[in-house]
């Protein structure tokens, strides 16, 4: 199983999104449309003065509804640090859970960073277990170093960082760094597990420590510059599959 095969498996969304609002919100429709398969606008009467709301449905009907304000927050999430108190209450995290196991397109770095923070925050709060993080290039860890140093110092997490070797990768205490060179991967099973995927994918997995209910993962492929397709999952089995692939292929 390669990263691409994981992505393909979840590339069939069964969820639909309907925006109920007096006027169409082309910006929001656009943002969802490029990211998930089905989004429609159903008008509310024009005498209604509010912005409206959004309903998410799956094959068995209603899943959740949410006001337009939080939808905007979800599409342009504030970037918190894991220990921020405001982060614990941010409603868009619940929306993340509702919209998991679905491949999203046109995700940008900001969206991925917010989702990554959600995973790092869980790891921070649980304080133990294994966190695996893939940077496309190891030097990118530099930007996240304050977060990861604090995670390493103040928790019992086992933290593995993966990335393509490039100039001046940091090597802080408490993190296990796996520098991956192209052609480095163990291809003994004959599959197409080229180490190239490390440079193309952004991933995080957290096993939840003792509590697999806290398990979560993010996997996203950069298909165009700063444009990713990816999914996140709160399914312990999916998280375990991705983490196992990473551990067995890259150590």
């Amino acid at each position, binding site marked *: 199983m390669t990263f691409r095969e994981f992505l393909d498996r979840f590339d069939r969304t069964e969820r639909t999104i309907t925006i*109920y609002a007096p006027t169409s919100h082309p910006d929001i429709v656009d943002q969802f449309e490029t990211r998930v398969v089905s989004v429609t606008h*159903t*008008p*509310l*009467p*024009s*005498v*209604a*003065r*509010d*912005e*409206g*709301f*959004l*309903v998410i*449905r799956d094959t068995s*009907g*209603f*899943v*959740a*509804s*949410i*006001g*337009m*304000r*939080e939808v905007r927050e979800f599409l342009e999430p504030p970037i918190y640090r894991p220990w921020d108190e405001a982060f614990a209450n941010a*409603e868009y995290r*619940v*929306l993340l859970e*509702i919209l998991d196991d679905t491949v999203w397109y046109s995700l940008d770095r900001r969206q991925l960073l917010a989702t990554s923070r959600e995973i790092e925050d869980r790891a921070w709060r649980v304080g133990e277990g294994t966190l695996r993080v893939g940077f496309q290039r190891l030097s990118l860890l530099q930007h996240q170093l304050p977060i990861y140093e604090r995670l390493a110092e103040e928790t019992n997490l086992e933290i593995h960082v993966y990335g393509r070797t490039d100039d001046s990768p940091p090597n802080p205490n408490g993190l296990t760094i796996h520098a991956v060179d192209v052609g480095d991967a163990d291809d003994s099973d004959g599959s197409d597990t080229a180490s190239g995927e490390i440079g193309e994918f952004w991933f995080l997995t957290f096993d939840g420590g003792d509590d697999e209910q806290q398990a979560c993962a993010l996997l996203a492929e950069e298909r165009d510059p700063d444009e990713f397709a990816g999914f996140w999952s709160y399914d312990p089995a999916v998280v375990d599959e991705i983490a196992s692939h990473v551990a067995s292929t890259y150590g």
Partner: protein
Amino acid sequence: MRMDNEQSASDRSRTDRSVIDNAFLILQNQERRYALYFLLEHETASLEEVADIVTGWPRASEYGITGRETRDQVLRDLRHRHVPAMAEAGIVDYDEETDTLSFAPCPPATRSFVRLACLAETVP
């Protein structure tokens, strides 16, 4: 008699008092109001969708996500209490076969009340 003459002179007919009573009786409940707001725009809708609306819309300005349990309770309330009440009051029709609600029998005066309530209750 005199009143009838006045009405015809101004080309208006007095709305039957029972229509007004029924309208206010029905409109005193928020779930029924939001169901009717939706019908203002769509005339006919499945009860399932109306339940989704009545769940999501009143909570749109609250900060939070509403889940399946709340929605299922709303659907039960609609099915067993509100829809029979609205049908009884002559404001909606419910088609059991298709499980749809339609606004067709609603008197014009009641529609106006619904519209006003929608304007007053929804906030930017």
